[in-house]
């Protein structure tokens, strides 16, 4: 009987722990129907090279040192339409601080249609044509909108899925802007630096 009670308490504690972790994962429930999920924070953002609507090839790693908001969307996704004008505003507001917004259209539509749609949404940032490869690289992006916040050092600061409120998006942007980037030196540069250090030491002696 005493053993049964102990098992019951242990199971109850386990259930409470699961409830707590569920709440943690789904923290946006506090704010209504909006979601923030996944734990890819701190992982390096997979690099890609995609065509933009004007045909320019855009490479993610070219933005190292900038804070990147990478938004996956589609023209058939009504919730995505809500966020796009917000992203355009944020791009305007924070460009001077180093924010770069990149939209990735996961559409089969003609680029001209995507461009028209983006223009109607007031998009002032590059829209890239998504591929299955980039979707796979970013964890099989199936749920739109999905937005990755990529720090200046190229690591993922946050991932948000589903429509969130503007305040939460802006908070994530600020958090991403606060990241730092220390350019890594090449082996040759490191060697040269070591040699300079060594010769300065010799000179001092």
């Amino acid at each position, binding site marked *: 009987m005493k053993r049964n009670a102990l098992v019951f308490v242990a199971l*109850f504690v386990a259930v409470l722990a699961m409830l707590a972790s*569920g709440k943690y*994962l789904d923290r946006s429930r506090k704010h209504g129907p909006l*979601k923030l999920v996944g734990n890819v924070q701190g992982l390096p953002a997979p690099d890609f090279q995609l065509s933009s609507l004007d045909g320019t090839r855009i490479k993610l790693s070219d933005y190292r040192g900038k804070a990147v908001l990478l938004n996956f969307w589609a023209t058939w996704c009504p*919730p995505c339409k809500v966020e796009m004008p917000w992203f355009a505003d944020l791009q305007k507001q924070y460009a001077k601080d180093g924010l770069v917004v990149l939209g990735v259209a996961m559409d089969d539509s003609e680029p001209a*249609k995507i461009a028209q749609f983006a223009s109607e949404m007031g998009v002032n940032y590059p829209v890239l044509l998504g591929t299955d490869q980039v979707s796979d690289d970013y964890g099989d992006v199936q*749920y*739109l909108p999905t937005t990755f916040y990529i720090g200046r050092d190229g690591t993922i600061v946050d991932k948000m*899925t589903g429509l969130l409120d503007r305040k939460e998006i802006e908070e994530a942007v600020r958090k991403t802007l606060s990241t730092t980037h220390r350019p890594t030196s090449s082996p040759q540069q490191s060697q040269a630096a070591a040699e300079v250090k060594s010769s300065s030491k010799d000179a001092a002696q």
Partner: protein
Amino acid sequence: MRKNPALALILLLMAAIALAQSPGDKVPSVVMAPIGNVQVRAGASATVNLDFRIGSEFHISSHTPKSELLIPTVLKLNAPDQVTVADVKYPAGQDVTFPFSPDEKLSVYSGDFSIDTVLKAPANAAAGTYPVTGTLRFQACDHSACYPPKSIPVQFQVTVVKK
């Protein structure tokens, strides 16, 4: 409940699992209800009701969404030589406003819906049982996000009988 702590635990566990589930983990489902053998007389037609059920929490664009950018629900059937698909009648969508677009009504299906198809067998159709195959293409969303278009198989048997 007091007499059955195991049941209480199971219910708590189910609640925990439901709460722990993240939006990306959900998969929208549309399933077709099984239908019995359809019979059509040579030289006549028969209406077949194809019933579908959309998973709770999800909706799909109707056959006539209010924007050309939205992806309509479309049934495509490949009929055998002995039968033709004379008509496909889609239900009207429900005009619904969602939290993500409070100023815009979308035409959607949710819950159960039925597509009526009219099959016709020519007078000279050979008697027999034939498979009808096809797909239902749809694009689903929930209250805060959308999933890529998807197709599910549609399949049933049609028996042509002589007059």
